[in-house]
């Protein structure tokens, strides 16, 4: 199920503005990779290039290569829509579709694509996805209620269920817990630990404890100043990054002596 991503010399632009410069990294399958770094350093921009979500912003483009199991996502003939089916994404703010019920939100990837699905298959998919997102027990009696009636943490898990319902290989999470309370955050962190058995997971977080708790590898991004491009400073096993990083900037950041 899980696949590996190789990033080589990626530069990311918004129009003329170089936002992220010269990133190369390997993201291992069946593991959790965390991106940490100060605001504005390009973590979110970078994670959005991994499933070609970056280019929905007018004027934004990428050079360099992002290879999924050796296939360049930016190569000719690659369909961004197919890329996004394969590499799912969970956003910072929970964004269930307001016009849909909980059940329809889980089935959104199927239904919005006008694909036919039998009732029993749909029921199975809803149950397995919601179980996969640890939400089944909380919502199984109100699947027909609107998704926006759930609490913030439940909505975010609904969005995760929606993402895994399309059966991606990789799940990208852009600060999935930053709008949630500590209990909901814990629920999602537990979920991430379970999900890494099946998926490659990349998570952007501002919370270093969270990176330390959930991730196997950590990448530290930094920015030299406003208007300068963000850069990958170093990437290593999470334990190494938080105990003995090789770069001084990383050590300053993880120990809170930043700026």
């Amino acid at each position, binding site marked *: 199920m899980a696949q590996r991503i190789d990033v080589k010399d990626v530069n990311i632009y918004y129009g003329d503005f170089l936002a992220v410069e010269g990133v190369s990294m390997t993201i291992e399958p069946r593991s959790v990779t965390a991106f940490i770094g100060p605001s504005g350093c390009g973590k979110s921009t970078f994670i959005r290039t991994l*499933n070609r*979500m970056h280019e*929905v912003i*007018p004027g934004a483009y990428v050079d360099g290569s992002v290879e999924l199991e050796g296939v360049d996502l930016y190569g000719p003939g690659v369909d961004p*829509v*197919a*890329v*996004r*089916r*394969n590499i*799912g*994404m969970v*956003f910072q*703010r929970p*964004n*269930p*579709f*307001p*016009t849909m019920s909980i059940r329809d939100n889980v089935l*959104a*990837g199927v*239904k*919005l*694509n*006008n694909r036919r699905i039998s009732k029993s298959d749909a029921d199975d998919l809803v149950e397995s996805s919601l179980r996969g997102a640890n939400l089944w027990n909380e919502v199984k009696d109100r699947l027909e*209620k*609107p998704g*926006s*009636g759930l609490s913030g943490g439940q909505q975010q898990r609904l*969005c995760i269920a*929606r*993402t895994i319902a*399309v059966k991606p290989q990789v799940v990208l999470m852009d600060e999935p817990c930053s709008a949630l309370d500590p209990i909901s955050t814990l629920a999602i962190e537990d979920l991430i630990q379970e999900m890494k058995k099946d998926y490659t997971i990349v998570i952007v977080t501002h919370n270093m404890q969270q990176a330390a708790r959930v991730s196997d590898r950590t990448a530290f991004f930094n920015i030299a100043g406003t208007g300068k491009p963000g850069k990958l400073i170093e990437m290593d096993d999470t334990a190494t990054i938080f105990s003995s990083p090789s770069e001084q900037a990383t050590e300053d950041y993880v120990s809170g002596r930043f700026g």
Partner: protein
Amino acid sequence: MSTDTMDTTERTRALLTSSEPRRKAVDRLMTVLIWAAFVVAMIPLVSLLWTVLVNGAGRVSLDFLTYSMRGIFGGDPSGGIYHAIMGTLIITGWAALISVPVGLLTAIYLVEYGRGALARSVTFFVDVMTGIPSIVAGLFVVALMTIFLGPGARFGIMGAIALSVLMIPVVVRSCEEMLKLVPNELREASYALGVPKWLTIIRVVLRTSVAGLTTGILLAVARVIGETAPLLVAVGVTDSINLNAFEGRMTTLPVFIYRQYSQGMATCREDQLNCVVDISYQNAWGAALVLIIVVMLLNIAGRLVNRWFAPKLR
């Protein structure tokens, strides 16, 4: 110690209650002003509805709604407005049928795809269209049809085209605003599930904003349903029922009202039995009441659609 506490309490109380008398006065003044403005704005509306109701209610009957004016002369009170009701519904219906697809697709283009010079010029020309006087729209259609059909052509569909010239910019503007209100996060959520852009627009953007779009379109309909001048020149008038928009003249309610009112008093001979002197005025008021009711029914339908499709929370 206790006096100290007392002191602190008193001082804090003074601090917290020391209000600015000026702010309170201004607040009261503004409340009064705004309520007064509201009442002033309501006076013409209530007075209009009341006048139309009082003058028109007596005339409206089943016969009035189901007969046409064919063969009705002078003070004969047995005529009706069926032909004008149907004319209004048919011409406005055709106008909506033309304007809604054009307007909605333009709005989708401007919000979802449009960039650069083309989008800017579309926006500019939509703004220009908003300012076209309605009579000019009517004359434009007459001039256009004269090229193809020769002079003297008067069809319902010509009126519908004239109305859509007026309606399209309103539809574009209101739909554009509604589509802009759809949060970008929903589009991104849909893209991230591997849904192509066109399906995202249809299934997420339009679906989320359908309530607002309906309201916008109904406002545009309400804007043109009362138009008189362009229809007078492009469709003409008739006393008979004509349900075919592609042949022959038609009458709509506003045009009917205008015609009846401009006829003035009828002259009744002494021996004439079935004659009402002010029947034209009565007809005009009755038709005005019916027109208002039609618009109101449209609005109620819009509200129902709105309630039915609006995103629900629980």
